[in-house]
């Protein structure tokens, strides 16, 4: 039984062990096959578990491997829990993960570290499953850190380019800031509730919520800081756009569909606590909405095909976080689900485009251009029809065009915002329009018109290894809305026993119609503006454009507020404290001993008898001490 529960983790572990040990002798196809099969096997296991969970509302699977930490009152075991909430996340992770593994086999073809890539990817899958299957905060944190590690390794996968390595480092450092909050939150949970197990903590919180309001407020705030790191919210979102340095499938899997949603997942998991902290709820909602808006506007002026999607991801995460802040946890989880599909589809399509561009560059023997720069694209709809279809449907879903999945999930959040918090509603509504606009801009720049470079001219559709996952994800993108279709809302019913505070989603036809019209309008507007693609060329160069392209200059703010002072402090440390004080002390000590030693050299006469004399002095002193002191 336990083995069955652990099997989703064990499958990728098995895959990574196989690839890590035998990979050197295996062909690319074999490596990719092993990794993909491992992911697919995990997905199959999740499906089986899902079947078991449908049995009853209370059904849950738990497994304890071993006691982990036992110190005083602290008792943490390495134990896992599969319930209705985690199985959803597990299905997303393994399902989309399996598709992306498959896509990667084609995408990474010919890479010199092909084997290592799949080892990392499997490790990520196992780590992510540890995170979502955890039954206590500490195991969750373990998974949290493990996925952080994988993210670091994969962002900097092409570390030979310094910028990529720096991006990985940036992600790592920024995430650590959030982690500090998370760790403090976990510690405070233990101090407050005396346990780290989810069910115990939540039960105690509910029982004595009033008395502990202050502590719970602080805990939820600290946990939220962790979430801002992992899920890229203001002020810690700056790492995610840079994370696009990694291979595109990695961006799709880790930095869009799964890992970045870990913060949202964690907040949904901790929803009983958040319910008890209204102040934190408000902060979360506003931060989420602000993030959605800021990132959305930033996406308007990006020229890199992946950067647009990256900012879009940040923006959509803002929606989810905001939903959690509004108490609409299930809506947030629903958006997480649909977003996973359409954003993965978009990223893979983008990857396919990049792949096609690189291919075209090779075929054209033309001048080297940045294969990710949208200014060099155009007219790819005809060259890569499947990719175009996937991108189009994914983009429309992102823009919130019915009846695609994004429309339903976003609408649920907007309805909640409308009901609870007007400021949030306004921000999210604006963001929705902006989203539609930049989606339109991207579609036009990439696929419409005529090719603007030799590379685009010679681009061709990718192979079946890449298109099959693309098609599968596109199908998911189209139909994922059904999971919580207004009126039937099966997801809400499914999650209700776990996320008890979820309300049945409301459907406001007026709002839905309004946003449908706005989205379509924005898309048309975008087409109108970028009919002449050269308009995009200079718009990120100066003024507001530059401000937006730079992600509201958060990086500059950090550079001025954190990095610069840090450099100054480091310089002070290095040149004044280190050189003068520490080195001075060390050298001074050395010099002192040299001087003292030099002056004592003459004591070392080299005459054995002289040493004997000194020994005798010691003997006399010691004997005298014992003889005269012992009475």
């Amino acid at each position: 039984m336990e083995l069955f529960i652990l099997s989703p983790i064990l499958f990728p572990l098995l895959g990574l062990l196989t690839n890590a040990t035998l990979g050197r002798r295996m062909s690319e196809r074999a490596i990719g096959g092993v990794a993909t099969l491992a992911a697919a096997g995990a997905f199959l296991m999740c499906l089986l578990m899902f079947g078991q969970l449908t049995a009853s509302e209370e059904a849950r699977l738990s497994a304890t491997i071993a006691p982990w930490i036992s110190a005083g009152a602290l008792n943490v075991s390495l134990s896992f829990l599969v319930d209705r909430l985690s199985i959803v996340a597990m299905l997303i992770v393994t399902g989309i993960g399996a598709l992306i593994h498959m896509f990667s086999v084609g995408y990474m073809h010919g890479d010199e570290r092909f084997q290592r890539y799949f080892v990392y990817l499997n490790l990520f899958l196992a780590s992510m499953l540890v995170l979502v299957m955890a039954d206590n905060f500490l195991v969750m944190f373990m998974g949290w850190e493990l996925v952080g590690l994988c993210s670091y390794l994969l962002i900097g996968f092409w570390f030979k380019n310094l910028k990529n390595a720096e991006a990985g480092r940036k992600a790592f450092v920024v995430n650590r800031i959030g982690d500090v909050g998370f760790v403090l939150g976990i510690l405070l949970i233990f101090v407050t509730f005396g346990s780290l197990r989810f069910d115990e903590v939540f039960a105690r919180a509910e029982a004595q919520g009033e008395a502990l309001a202050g502590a719970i407020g602080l805990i939820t705030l600290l946990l939220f800081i962790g979430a801002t790191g992992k899920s890229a919210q203001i002020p810690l979102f700056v790492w995610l756009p840079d994370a696009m340095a990694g291979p595109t499938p990695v961006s799709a899997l880790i930095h869009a569909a799964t890992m970045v949603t870990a913060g949202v997942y964690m907040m949904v998991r901790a929803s009983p606590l958040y319910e008890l902290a209204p102040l934190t709820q408000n902060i979360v909602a506003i931060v989420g909405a602000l993030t959605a808006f800021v990132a959305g506007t930033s996406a308007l002026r990006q020229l890199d095909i992946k950067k647009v999607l990256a900012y879009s991801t940040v923006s959509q995460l803002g929606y989810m976080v905001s939903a959690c802040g509004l108490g609409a946890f299930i809506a947030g989880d629903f958006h997480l689900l649909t977003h996973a599909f359409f954003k993965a589809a978009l990223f893979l399509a983008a990857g396919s485009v990049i792949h096609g561009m690189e291919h075209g560059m090779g075929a054209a023997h033309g001048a080297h251009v940045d294969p990710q720069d949208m200014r060099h694209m155009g007219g790819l709809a005809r060259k890569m029809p499947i990719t175009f279809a996937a991108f189009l449907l994914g983009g429309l879903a992102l823009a919130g065009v019915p009846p695609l999945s994004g429309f339903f999930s976003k609408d649920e959040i907007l309805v909640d915002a409308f009901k609870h918090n007007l400021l949030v509603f306004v921000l999210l509504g604006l963001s929705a329009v902006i989203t539609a606009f930049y989606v339109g801009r991207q579609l036009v720049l990439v696929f419409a018109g005529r090719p603007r470079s030799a590379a685009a001219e010679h681009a061709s559709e990718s192979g079946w290894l890449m298109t099959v996952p693309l098609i599968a994800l596109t199908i998911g993108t189209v139909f994922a809305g059904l999971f919580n279709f207004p009126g039937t809302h099966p997801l809400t019913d499914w999650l209700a026993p776990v996320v008890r505070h979820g309300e049945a989603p409301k459907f406001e036809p007026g709002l839905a119609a309004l946003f449908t019209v706005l989205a379509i309008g924005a898309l048309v507007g975008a087409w109108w503006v970028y009919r002449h693609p050269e308009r995009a060329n200079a718009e990120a160069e100066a003024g507001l454009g530059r401000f937006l392209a730079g992600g509201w200059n958060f990086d500059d703010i950090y550079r001025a507020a954190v990095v610069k002072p840090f450099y100054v402090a480091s310089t002070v440390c290095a040149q004044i404290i280190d050189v003068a004080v520490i080195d001075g002390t060390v050298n001074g000590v050395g010099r002192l001993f040299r001087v003292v030693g030099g002056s004592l050299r003459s004591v070392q006469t080299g005459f054995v008898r002289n040493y004997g004399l000194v020994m005798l002095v010691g003997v006399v002193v010691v004997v005298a001490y014992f003889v005269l002191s012992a009475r």
Partner: protein
Amino acid sequence: MTDLPLLIILGAISIASALGLLLSRNAIYAALFLVLNFGVGAVIYLVLNAPFIAVVQVSVYAGAIMVLFLFVIMLLGAERLSPAENPPGIPLQRPLAIALGAALFGLALYVLFARQPPATPSPMVDSSPAAVGQSLFSTYVFPFEVVSILLLVAMVGAVVLTRNK
């Protein structure tokens, strides 16, 4: 104690021979003074009811160790100890050594006479070789084994040190 006069005579010889060792100019004489000292020591052991130790003293110290000394001295031809050809010794070595020796001796005297524990009449203990052997192979079997290893190591060491390469 009836043994005391005998002991005083033996002690006098013993001290005289020790001084002979300290002052002699000839290594052979020094060695022989030491042999004499050991011989007297053996007799003192006899008086103190330690016959086994006494004969072991003769056969080990006089019969083996000192013969070895004599042998080495004669082998090296190192018997003449003329201080004249030495480099001017170490300043203050002599007065300091004498002072410290005196201090050590003073401490010993203090322990012996100022801190004298009450003398209790003691029965004679069975100190036959059999008794000593019993003690060696029961109570002291571990030190005995350690010493045997030490002797083995010393043997190997001596062979290695003196072997011509």
